[in-house]
């Protein structure tokens, strides 16, 4: 296990290195004149020169790359270009914690709900409960987050008026005390994965109930509830954990979209803001941080899976 973890961790570092190279290539090498890209076509030579000075663009690319990576490793990310006097590292920590809260809350919602729905559908395969759950979960998978978010907003904020349409979070208070603003974003983030996991759980419950060991259990006269509990569910839930672990990354894309639908102050809306403002240093740092968080999240999911599965020994 320790060797496996070390190997995986090494792999993450390698991937992160490649990610940083890709980010640097896309943002500073491919566009050509970085200062021109940031300031646009109407920039005067003076402002261009000033920006080049400020970003150290006269240095060769490899020096700029190493400076950037050095800054990231030591935590000196510098100031944002578009927001005067704002430290990028403060911004990332603050927004990152908000996004983490959103992601965690969504996972807490989606795991039990999708397991229960999947099990109900699987045990009642081809009956009405299954048809309803299967159809709804396929619809949930199909809807882009900005569509399901808008529908939820229209129903629960505009029409019923139960929940706020925008997450105007007060940074002075804890997120828990403002949870009513987070309900719609949390549900929206969860929907796609919820549908997906429910379908997968259904499939593995059906597979387990058709297996030879389930039939043996029935034939030896075990009461149905024991067959279901001991033989079918225990074997069916493990693949479900794998599915959740493998797709936890989907939350990332979802969170980016949902944050901009509801105006939630997280990393996703930050990266979009940075792109709109052409705030290059901020773009590079946030994207690298998100790539790193994504990789670590996937590793954690794998560890949980390994811990739950006695058949896996590294």
């Amino acid at each position, binding site marked *: 296990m320790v060797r496996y973890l070390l190997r995986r961790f090494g792999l993450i570092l390698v*991937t992160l290195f*490649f*990610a940083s190279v*890709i*980010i640097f290539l*896309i*943002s500073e090498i*491919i*566009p050509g004149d970085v200062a021109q*890209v940031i300031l646009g076509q109407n920039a005067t030579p003076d402002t261009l020169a000033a920006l080049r000075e400020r970003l150290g663009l006269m240095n060769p690319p490899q020096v700029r790359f190493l400076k950037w990576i050095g800054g990231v490793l030591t935590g000196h990310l510098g100031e944002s270009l578009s927001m005067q006097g704002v430290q990028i590292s403060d911004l990332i920590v603050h927004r990152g914690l908000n996004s983490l809260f959103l992601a965690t809350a969504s996972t807490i919602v989606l795991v039990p709900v999708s397991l229960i729905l999947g099990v109900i559908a699987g045990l009642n395969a081809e009956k009405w409960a299954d048809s309803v759950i299967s*159809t709804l979960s*396929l*619809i949930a*998978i*199909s*809807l*882009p*987050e*900005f*569509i399901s978010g*808008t*529908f939820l*907003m*229209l129903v629960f*904020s*505009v029409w019923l008026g139960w929940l706020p*349409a925008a997450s105007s979070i007060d940074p002075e208070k804890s997120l828990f005390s403002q949870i009513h603003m987070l309900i719609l974003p949390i549900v929206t983030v969860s929907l796609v994965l919820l549908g997906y996991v429910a379908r997968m759980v259904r499939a593995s419950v059906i597979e387990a109930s058709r297996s030879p060991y389930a039939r043996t259990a029935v034939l030896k006269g075990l009461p149905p509830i024991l067959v279901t509990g001991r033989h079918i569910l225990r074997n069916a839930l493990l693949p479900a954990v794998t599915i959740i672990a493998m797709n936890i*990354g989907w939350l*990332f*894309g979802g969170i*980016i*979209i949902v944050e*901009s*639908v509801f105006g939630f102050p997280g990393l996703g809306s930050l*990266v*979009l803001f940075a*792109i*709109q403002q052409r705030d290059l240093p901020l*773009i590079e740092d946030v*994207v690298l941080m*998100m*790539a790193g968080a*994504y*990789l670590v999240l*996937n590793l954690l999911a794998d560890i949980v899976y390994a811990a739950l599965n006695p058949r896996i020994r590294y």
Partner: protein
Amino acid sequence: MGTMNTVPDAECRDEEESKFRRLLGAAGRSLAGFAEGTRRISASHAALISLIILLFWLLMALVGGLIAPYDPNHQNIMERFQSPSLHHLCGTDRFGRDVFSRIVIGSHTVFLLAASSTLLSLVVGSLVGLVSGYVGGVLDELIMRFTDILMSFPMLLFAMLMLGIMGPSFIGVVVVIAIVFFPRIARVVRSVVLELKTKEFVEAAKVRGEGGLYIMIVEIFPNTLGPLGVEAAVRFGYAIFTSASLGFLGLGVQPPTPDWGMMMSDAQAYVTTAPWMAIFPALAIASLTVSVNFLADAIRKLGDGDL
């Protein structure tokens, strides 16, 4: 010796002919399979409705210009934020543009974007998968590690970075989606190739003296069409999903071209005052993505023999 000279010629011609016949046979079989598949998909209600919705939007995409009652970009300050009526079936937006016309014309962009990005990723993915699986060895290892790295990057973030820096454009969206999708297609194709490359018919072709390119394209590739078809249907759905999301983030096709995703982000600020601006494009996107997914599901079940 004279006969020896003619025989290889004849054989050669025979061979050319049989190659042609084999290709024709493969095409005929896939056509018959397609017809049978269509019949069976139509037998399932959900899939039939989905097919009708998909064909409806396809028709809109093709002849929308004839159906749209207004110029989708015609601005009319006197008719801003009109609620749905007989004049404006889906209301008007903040510039007084007809939402219905914009949806109808916008369907063209949706299909063009999703189809071209799916096609590009299929072509690149199949090529990479064929070569990687057939050649094997170090090349295979390198290609697989490269696709691993591509796949371990959150895809929407990658797309946002590319389009945000280089400036959003139609070609940009197509290329970015293809970059994100092709590794998965390459894996599907590669796994079929690995399974087949030790089979007798491939060995036989090698003994006949066929080149690698011929074997890959004529002997192996037709066998990947089944899994590839399922993958293509799923990818087409994701392509609509992803391009609409990029449009929503303002990183898709740029104004004045009407784009469903962009219409949704324009509508965000007016959700309470002019909800029709959001409702109708949302229904359009939802109907299309849901029906494509139901069809992809039906095609997958068809492949598994469940339908």
